[in-house]
Each structure stands twice: as structure tokens, then as C-alpha cells.
């Protein structure tokens, strides 16, 4: 039965990407949300099987009137194991429709995931679902692995910018190892942009019910937002009402028809990455500066490689022209520094090339990398089998075999 495909779950704080290995697209992208009968963590009785009365994904939102909606993953890390276990149960049985005993599973983890979490994941997968094998991959490394398939030169050295719903990370990776001391967290991500847009809509008194506001803002963000070249010029352009766009949709909670106008927030939202000082008080370093300082903090012999292979991953990097703008300001920054160096020392250094890679699978780059990795022959070498688990217990998940030595 070794021909059964590997099942890959990439559970992010916003969305879960689920599917079979070997495909280029995940079979499902659903919100990582669960709504259940429990209130405040008091388990319900099991007499009438109330514990099975819960919904996940889109259905969770639709049933939030009668059930309590919660999000089991916060900032990339699982914070409610009860909910997560049930989320997996439902995804296995009603979405993927697989028999867990027959399949090898692959999960992903954020950088700096404590080993206890990894053990807990293994424990749930092996104890509850009796899976045949398990591999827990590091998201950044998988994203890098996936990007290799678009390139001629294969390497697992590069910088990954992973921006999802809750948090943005800049993660340098050297030869398949994450350089954990150099990871940078930026507290700006998809949710903040959604909030910003929602606030703009509310301040202008667009006719949207409060319950629907966040959702409408999210849809507007995903459909209309883009990154501009120059903020001030773009603002002037929007003085002309003809530039404004219309948004029509149906509220997810109330079901009412929504008709609203969308204006400058279309580019002001994503702009928060490039001039955060103007938008929030928590953070004032633009993304390119963070990226630059992260790479400058890495070992000197890696820096050139890190500059030349920056990979974007996650939904929030999808804004139109995001990578163009990042590329331009990064190159500018690096060139400026080299010019300064040349002026002070008198000799001209070799120019450094910055390359920001954007691929069509960027939205689910981690999943795509995982899918390609699971289908590669190397996978069978690194996967933890059930026999190993029964022999050694959950501690097998502590140690992760690094792949990519063959690349």
C-alpha cells in the first residue's frame, strides 16, 4: 500500500492548505476556524455525541450564531490542541476522505516552533489517527524547496519572506537550515491591512453592516489592493472620483446586499509595509530595511546568496507590484551602501544583485514545496514511521532530519 499518496496539511493562522502530494495545487484552501458547542473550554457531555457537533472552515463562519467560533492557530503556532485535533479529524474524514491508517501525513511548522509542540503534533497524529508515517517540515525551508523547481540553479540558501494573516517573518536559510538567531518578526500582516481597510470604510460611512465589515474588507483587500510606486502621487490621483471603484457583494453574516465605494485604501493598505511609520505606532521600519538588516546580521559568506534568492510566500505577498517595489527599494539600498563604501575606501566592490522571486504558487508556496518534496525519492528517508513511534515515542519528532543534502 506504499502507493497511497502522502497527505499534506499546511495549517496557517489564517488559512489551511490541504491536499495530496504530487499535485501542483492544494485540494482545499479553507479558513483555519472551528465553531463548536463548548463555551470557555468546558467540554460538553458525550451522551448525544455533542462533541461531534462542530463545524470547520467556511461552515464555521456560517454557524457562528449557534456555535462559538475560535481559531486554533495564533501567529503560526497551535494554541488550542483540542480544537486542532478536532479540526484535523474533520479534515481527514470529511474533506480528504482518506483512511488515516493507510497514509503518510506531512504537517508544517513555523520557524522557532518549540520541540514540545512538535512532539504534541506527533502524539496526536500517531495516537489518535494511527497514521502510517509523519513528517513535520519547516515552512520556510519547504517554500525554498518549492521555489527551486522554477529555477535552473538548485540551492537551499535564501531568504524567505512569509507573510500570512497574523504575522510576517523574514527567515534566512542556509543549506536547508534555518538561521534561527537571525529570524525577524514584523508585527504587520494580512489582518492588520484588513482592519485598516475596514476602518477606512467605516470612517467614510459606507453602507456595510458592522458584522459584515471585516469580511467585506477582506474581500476588497484580496481583489482590489495593490502596491503603488509613489504614495503622494497616487493620493492625488484619487481626488478624481472617477478613479474610485465599486464593490458589490453579499455580507457573510447578515446575508444583505452590499454596495460600497472603494478609494485610496486600495493602495494605502499594502503601503503599511513600506512606510509603516505613517500608519501604526508599533512599528516604523519599512520591509526593505528589515530585510536588509536581517541579511546584514547573517554570516558574511552567505550574504550574497541571501540577497540573490529572496522568496515570497503567503497570501499577503500577493498584492500587485509588491515584489517590484520590494526589489527596487532593496536594490537601491544595497547600491547606496556599496557606493558609500566605495567613496570611503576608494576601491570599487563587486556589485551585489538582489533578486525577489515571485511565482504563481506563491499563495501556497509552503504547500507546493511540501507537495514536491513528498513526491521526491528523498522523502522516504526522512519520514518517521509508525514503527519508530511505537519504539521510541513522541521524542522522534524532536529531531528533524534535514533534507536537501542531495540538492
Amino acid at each position: 500500500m506504499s502507493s497511497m499518496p502522502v497527505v499534506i496539511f499546511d495549517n496557517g493562522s489564517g488559512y489551511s492548505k490541504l491536499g495530496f502530494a504530487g499535485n501542483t495545487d492544494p485540494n482545499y484552501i479553507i479558513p483555519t476556524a472551528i465553531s463548536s458547542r463548548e463555551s470557555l473550554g468546558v467540554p460538553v457531555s458525550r451522551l448525544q455525541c455533542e462533541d461531534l457537533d462542530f463545524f470547520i472552515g467556511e461552515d464555521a463562519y456560517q454557524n457562528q450564531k449557534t456555535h462559538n467560533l475560535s481559531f486554533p492557530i495564533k501567529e503560526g503556532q497551535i494554541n488550542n490542541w483540542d480544537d486542532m485535533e478536532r479540526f484535523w479529524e474533520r479534515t481527514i474524514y470529511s474533506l480528504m476522505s482518506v483512511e488515516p491508517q493507510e497514509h503518510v501525513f506531512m504537517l508544517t511548522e513555523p520557524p522557532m516552533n518549540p520541540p514540545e509542540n512538535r512532539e504534541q503534533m506527533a502524539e496526536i497524529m500517531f495516537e489518535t489517527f494511527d497514521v502510517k508515517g509523519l513528517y513535520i517540515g519547516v515552512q520556510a525551508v519547504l517554500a525554498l524547496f518549492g521555489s527551486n523547481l522554477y529555477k535552473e540553479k538548485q540551492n537551499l540558501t535564501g531568504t524567505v519572506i512569509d507573510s500570512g494573516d497574523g504575522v510576517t517573518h523574514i527567515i534566512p536559510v542556509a543549506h536547508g537550515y534555518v538561521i534561527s538567531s537571525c529570524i525577524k518578526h514584523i508585527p504587520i500582516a494580512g489582518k492588520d491591512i484588513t482592519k485598516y481597510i475596514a476602518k477606512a470604510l467605516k470612517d467614510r460611512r459606507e453602507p456595510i453592516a458592522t458584522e459584515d465589515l471585516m469580511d467585506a474588507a477582506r474581500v476588497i483587500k484580496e481583489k482590489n489592493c495593490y502596491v503603488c510606486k509613489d504614495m503622494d502621487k497616487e493620493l492625488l490621483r484619487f481626488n478624481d472620483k472617477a478613479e474610485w471603484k465599486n464593490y458589490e457583494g453579499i455580507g457573510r453574516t447578515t446575508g444583505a446586499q452590499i454596495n460600497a465605494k472603494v478609494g485610496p485604501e486600495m493602495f494605502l493598505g499594502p503601503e503599511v509595509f513600506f512606510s509603516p511609520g505613517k500608519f501604526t505606532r508599533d512599528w516604523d521600519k519599512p520591509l526593505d530595511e528589515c530585510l536588509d538588516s536581517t541579511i546584514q546580521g547573517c554570516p558574511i559568506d552567505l550574504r550574497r546568496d541571501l540577497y540573490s534568492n529572496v522568496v515570497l510566500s503567503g497570501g499577503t505577498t500577493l498584492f500587485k507590484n509588491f515584489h517590484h517595489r520590494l526589489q527596487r527599494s532593496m536594490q537601491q539600498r544595497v547600491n547606496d551602501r556599496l557606493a558609500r563604501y566605495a567613496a570611503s575606501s576608494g576601491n570599487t566592490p563587486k556589485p551585489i544583485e538582489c533578486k525577489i522571486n515571485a511565482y504563481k504558487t506563491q499563495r501556497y508556496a509552503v504547500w507546493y514545496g511540501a507537495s514536491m518534496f513528498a513526491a521526491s525519492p528523498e522523502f522516504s528517508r526522512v519520514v518517521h514511521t509508525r514503527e519508530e513511534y511505537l519504539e521510541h515515542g513522541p521524542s522522534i519528532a524532536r529531531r528533524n532530519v534535514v533534507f536537501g543534502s542531495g540538492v
Partner: protein
Amino acid sequence: MMSIDPHHPLIIDNISALLNSTIDLTNLLFKLTDYDGIQYVISGQNTDSLCFTVLAPQLASVGEAGGYESIQLNYPGFPIAIDEGSYSILIDRSQLPDPSLGEERKLRANDIANKFSMFRTHFLSGPFIKALKNVKSGTAFQPKEVLIRPNEKLWVIPGENRVNFIFQVNFSDHTDGSLSRVFLQEFVEAKRQVPNSPVITFSQNPPEAMSMFKGATLPSTIGFLCITVLKEQIRQEAETGQWLAGLKQYLTYHLHACKTYLHMRMRKKTEGLLKVLKNAVPDKLEEKTFRRVRAAKTRREESKIVYNFN
């Protein structure tokens, strides 16, 4: 969700998307898996037709016991090709209503997709339906041994005005095995509460009825579940057959859900115990007040001494 939906959601998605589109199907190929070790390969034959191939180790055994008949009954008008170890059905997109009849074509396509998503259930329920039908009409038939899952067998044994279905229950995991024993005993209990339900027995040893079959005692077998259906209990063969075919999945699903629930309770308990432990740690605060009281007392006494001196 009390029971598992017999529809395979991915088959619905994929087939309806393909049938509703007009893309060239020639080089298309993708694979899906289902419960009971069944795999599907959906491949394009030419621009307009799809080949829905089923691969499973138990294919021939179930097929001959009634699976093939059930498929022919449920998929009329679709050409079928049986090969060793695989079973293919052709879907011709050009036979759908013309694209100009948008709505109608869509309905028909979704209908087909829905039908194929039930393939496993239709196929595996074949042996059950056949036996039930035979009992109902009073036709005699031979006892049969069917390989229903890659490592589990089913025995269909006719009796007087009744039929016995004996399932071999196997679990690769020990915990699952023990839990399933409890579960299956529960089935026997439940009989008392449901009037006119079939007789269900669960035993660790092969039941009497299947004495003509030898070699059934695989070492890892948890037990044998015997469901006896009487002639007058048979009303809707198709529906009953579907339930029987999904029995093992139902069992596994509930086992896993039950374990999840136990884990939730365990986590809750640990949290409670941790709280107790935290409370048991002696408080620093107490010591402080004690010292302050003592200090005040000492001070008072000292001042008394000073006072006495004066």
C-alpha cells in the same frame, strides 16, 4: 456529523469541473484515494471523454459477489471495461446536453459527478444488496467468502428466511482494537433499545454459522461481528446495503472521535491538576505580612522598654 458522508467531495469537485469546462481532456491525469484502500485514476481518453479507473486489491472478490452488478445497475449507459485489478468506466462529455443549454448541461454534469462520488458505496454494497434481494425473493444461494477490505473478509451465509453477514474486524493498532471491542459490545446492547432490529452478536471466536470456512483466524483479528437480517426486516435493500458497506468506516470514525474526546478530557484534567499544584506553592506574601506584624510587635515592645526607662 454523526456518520460519514458516502459522497467523496473531491470526486464531485473534479468531475463536475471537468464536465462543465470545455478544455481538452486528452492529457489529463490525476489520482484520488478513498476509504477501504480504493484508488481512483481519472484520465483523459481523447478531447471529450474521461476514463474513471478504480484500483483496489479486493476488486475481483467484491465484484464477483455482486459489486459489478450493482455498478451496472447504478451507472446505466456508461461503457465499462474490466481488467485484472482495475475497473474502468468511460464518461463521454459530448453526450451531455449542448453547451447552449447552459443550465441543463450543468445539472446533468453535477448529477454525473454526484453519482461517481458514490462509487465506493455502490460497489461495496453490491454483495449485501444481492444477498438481501435473494432472501427477500426466496432464492437459495451458496455461502460466500468475500475479501471486502485489503485485510478483512466478509462471510455471507444464508439461513432459513434470513442471511448472516459476518464481518471480520481488524485493527492495526492495539488501542483501536481494545476500544472497538467495547464499541461492538455496545452494538449488542443497543439492540434492546431499538425494536425490530436485526440480531447482532460479537465474539472473539468465529461463530458457529461459518464452520464450513476454515483458515479465517488471522492472528490479529479482534473478533467477528455477526449481523443477522430476517426476511421480514428487509425493506429497502439499497439503503441497508449502503449502511452495511460503510460499517467499518463508521466504526473507525467514531473510534477516532472518541479518542479525541478522551484526549480533550485528559487535557482538561491536567490543567486542573496543574492549577492545584500552583496553589500549593507557598506564598511569599504570607511571610511578608508575618514579618511586618512581628516588626510592629517588636517595635511596640522596644518603645515600651524605652518608655519604661523614662
